[in-house]
């Protein structure tokens, strides 16, 4: 659900659908393996194993270098000791060492990281300075030195490795804390009178725990690997570990390969399992959908359509749906809309109404995977839903221009404004670099950027928010499209800058005879700057018509309620606003009948049972059983 209007930062009045991502087969396999290793470590003395130190050459149970088989599953070593028993017993030091190092080093690191990230300033500089030095110092050499002085027992190795682990945790946690400390709840707690230590303990520590644990799993594997490396160098623990087994077997790799390979496999699988579980936990924290377009094969040019429709953009019965954890969301449900050349159409609605998805359904760029579209989206005679990818991308570059909400993400931060403009022009047409540059400067001037010959060589971050949005408009207009799609183009801007940008868009439409589709949550923007309006609710267009007529005399009960809930300049201060109670309908399983019925003050059984038929009166259209003042149609 949350993705329907994902690009806007508005929260809207509906609980986000929390679909926990499924963790997958390998994750659970890894968890199982870790549990087995932990069991082995815990129960090695209890389960009926052979004595790992019993010499087969004496007991006669196992031969020297016996190959793995029925008698001894993992075979025997040079003195006939049971390798299976040795590997099982080797699990214990591996687990004890990693658990101790990870928990001690991890907790210290988390504490240090939270303190550094929250207090910042000098505390931070000192802590992170020390951490950097520790990072720079080769850990293995430190461990060499430690073992040379004190020998290599658990009591030595655990604190040594724990200290080495602290900076890693501290760095990760510091980053997370800095991000969290910028969120309002930290300020809110301070404003309420909470002390700094309370903020650290109550607000921050519980939140950094999950990322720290994820990192801890990766650290767990690293400890096991480090111990193996030390053992390989002959500096391992003075007891039986997987590392010492591998080190013992490596000289005999030709004669009895199982001696090194089996403990190595056990170690490898364990490290992998910890890494997978750590990654899995990390994904739980940070699920990121990927943006992809949808592939289509057939050629979509249909002469019948271009002949029949005089509209530049003609949407017929468009339905857009995508799968989520909670079921299939139908974000756009049977929408039809015509936009003629030279007209500006506002698509207005609240979060989750489907307005942004409708716009994305035209271009085919979605923030989620698996989007399905049915119906027709015809631009200048070409159905974009059935067009070939090449045809579609040509259309997007030349016929259709796009302006998005956030100009900073729409522009490439490491390239100059000019090079981005030039690229867009040269992709779609034969034009020399010099000519393209001249045109780039010209187009910057057209969108009202002062000193365009200097700004053309600037990077996006050197421009103000309003100037950046002008640049994205210049980009969208570079190839003189006939249709401009703008998604909340001024939501991130101040009201005086918004006025400038909307003035510019409206003037460009007129000069170039261009059609504009303007998606916004802001009724005033629609009222002030569009010719026509389409009001969306629950994935459908519930009312459409000329802007002035719809605002003066709204027909659909939702449009009326929406207008009545908007604070207006012609109302006296402290006027009570009408509010729409309840929540928007589910887009997974929308209720039967009118989508707005549950929140409508005059809805009756008919509204809740029967989907209202679209009513068309001259240039206006609405779907409501009781339009206007509420009399039945």
């Amino acid at each position, binding site marked *: 659900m949350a993705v329907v209007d994902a690009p806007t930062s508005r929260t809207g*009045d*509906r609980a986000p659908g929390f679909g926990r991502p499924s963790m997958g087969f390998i994750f659970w396999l890894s968890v199982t393996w870790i549990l087995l290793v932990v069991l082995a470590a815990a129960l090695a003395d209890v389960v009926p194993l052979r004595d790992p130190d019993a010499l087969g050459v004496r007991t006669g149970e196992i031969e020297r270098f016996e190959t793995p088989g029925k008698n001894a599953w993992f075979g025997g070593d040079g003195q006939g000791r049971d390798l299976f028993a040795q590997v099982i017993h080797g699990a214990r030091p591996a687990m004890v060492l990693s658990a101790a190092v990870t928990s001690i080093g991890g907790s210290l690191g988390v504490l240090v990281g939270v303190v550094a990230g929250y207090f910042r300033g000098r505390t931070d500089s000192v802590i992170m300075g020390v951490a950097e030095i520790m990072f720079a110092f080769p850990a293995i050499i430190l461990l060499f030195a430690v073992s040379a002085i004190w020998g290599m027992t658990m009591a030595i190795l655990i604190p040594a490795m724990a200290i080495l682990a602290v900076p890693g945790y501290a760095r990760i946690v510091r980053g997370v804390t800095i991000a969290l400390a910028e969120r309002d709840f930290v300020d809110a*707690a301070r404003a309420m*009178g909470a002390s700094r230590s309370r903020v650290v303990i109550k607000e921050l520590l519980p*939140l950094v725990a999950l990322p720290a644990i994820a990192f801890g799993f990766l650290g767990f594997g690293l400890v096991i690997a480090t111990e193996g490396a030390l053992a390989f160098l002959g500096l391992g623990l003075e007891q039986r570990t997987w590392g010492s087994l591998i080190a013992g077997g490596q000289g005999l790799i030709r004669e009895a390969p199982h001696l090194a390979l089996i403990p190595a496999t056990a170690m490898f699988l364990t490290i992998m399992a910890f890494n997978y579980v750590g990654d899995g936990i990390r994904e739980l924290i940070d699920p990121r959908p990927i943006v992809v377009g949808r592939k289509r094969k057939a050629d979509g040019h249909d002469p019948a359509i271009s002949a029949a429709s005089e509209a530049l953009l003609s949407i017929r019965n468009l339905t857009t749906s995508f799968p989520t954890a909670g079921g299939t969301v139908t974000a756009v449900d049977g929408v039809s809309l015509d936009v003629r050349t030279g007209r500006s159409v506002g698509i207005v609605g609240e979060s989750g109404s489907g307005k942004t998805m409708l716009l994305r359904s035209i271009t085919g760029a979605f923030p989620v995977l698996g989007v399905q579209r049915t119906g027709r989206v015809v631009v200048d005679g070409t159905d974009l839903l059935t067009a070939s990818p090449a045809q579609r991308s040509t259309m997007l570059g030349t016929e259709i221009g796009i302006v998005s909400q956030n100009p900073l993400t729409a522009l490439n931060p490491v390239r100059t404004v000019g090079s981005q403009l030039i690229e867009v022009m040269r992709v779609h047409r034969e034009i020399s670099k010099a000519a393209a540059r001249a045109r780039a400067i010209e187009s910057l001037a057209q969108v009202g950027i002062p000193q365009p010959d200097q700004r053309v060589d600037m990077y996006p971050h050197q421009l103000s928010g309003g100037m950046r949005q002008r640049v994205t408009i210049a980009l969208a207009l570079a190839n003189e499209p006939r249709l401009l799609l703008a998604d909340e183009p001024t939501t991130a801007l101040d009201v005086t800058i918004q006025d400038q940008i909307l003035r510019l868009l409206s003037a460009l439409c007129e000069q170039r005879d261009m059609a504009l589709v303007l998606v916004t949550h802001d009724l005033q923007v*629609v009222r002030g700057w569009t010719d026509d309006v389409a009001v969306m609710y629950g994935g459908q267009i519930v009312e459409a018509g000329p802007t002035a007529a719809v605002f003066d005399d709204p027909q659909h009960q939702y449009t009326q309620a929406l207008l009545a*809930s908007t604070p207006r*300049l012609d109302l006296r201060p402290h006027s009570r606003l009408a509010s729409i109670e309840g929540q928007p309908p589910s887009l997974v399983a929308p209720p039967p009948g009118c989508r707005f019925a549950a929140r409508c003050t005059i809805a009756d059984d008919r509204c809740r049972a029967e989907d209202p038929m679209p009513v068309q009166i001259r240039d206006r259209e609405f779907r409501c059983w009781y339009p206007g003042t509420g009399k039945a149609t």
Partner: protein
Amino acid sequence: MAGTGHAHLRLDDPDILLRVRDLVVEFPARKGQVVHAVSGVSIDLARGETLGVVGESGCGKTTLGRAVMRLEDAQSGTIEFREHDLFGLGGSELAVKRRDMQMIFQDPVSSLNPRRRVRDLVREGLEIWGNESGPFSDARVEAILAAVGLAGESVGERRPHEFSGGQCQRICIARALVMDPEVLILDEPVSALDVSVQAQILNLLEDLKVEFGLTMVFVSHDLAVVRNVSDRVMVMYLGKVCEVANTERLFDAPAHPYSRALLASIPGHELNLPDASTLISGELPSPIEPPSGCRFRTRCPMATEECAEREPELREVAVGQFVACHHA
């Protein structure tokens, strides 16, 4: 500047709860420069009044609210709250004096620690202050939740992500109210909400204002919202005050050129104002090196030499309307 001065302060009104004088907040920038976020702003708040603070990004309205709460450190000025000067206070002394002022933030979802349950979130203030505990505080938490329209037994047990944006803002309001504050500072409290939800929260705030006897500072960029909730409105630009007036006066007859530009920029308005493009030009100057004299002069169509040389002071141009402009 868009200006300085105290003409708008009601010095002999005994009902003034909060009085801020000549507040200066500066942030360090690179190379030893400073960002002049708030430069000598004075406000006063009468008991039961709502002061709307409007302006665009960079005008200092949010910093002003945060500095009054002492979430930002001010360089100079006084913050008198019920006869106590909060300015020089720190640590626990400040916390005690400030208890009767609470703040609501813009993003309700980010204002709530996602891992904690609603009951614990709302009870937090009581816990910190330890004045009510056990079943008594539970009853109070329930009552406050009901007052903000979140009745029901299971509400307290749930976590913020189970609530919508509007409901989260209700929880934030409940957290502030549980402390029984006198002054509520609201920083863009409805900007992140959908229109229909925004109306619910605005209505709720009006109800609570009466029920709990609240005095409010309402910081917002949305002029229509500010008109709806405020008794008095202050327009800020680049760290300075342009105009202070009773709400209806400001919207009916804005006198400062920037107030006029701001109002004219509202899309689809039906005010008797010329096009915004004739009232304001160019872009916001850098707050690191603000223009001399009136800070708005670089974008003002009426600017003269005097505006560059001398900073205008607030003066009364009509009853209850104070403007810092040489030409208004």
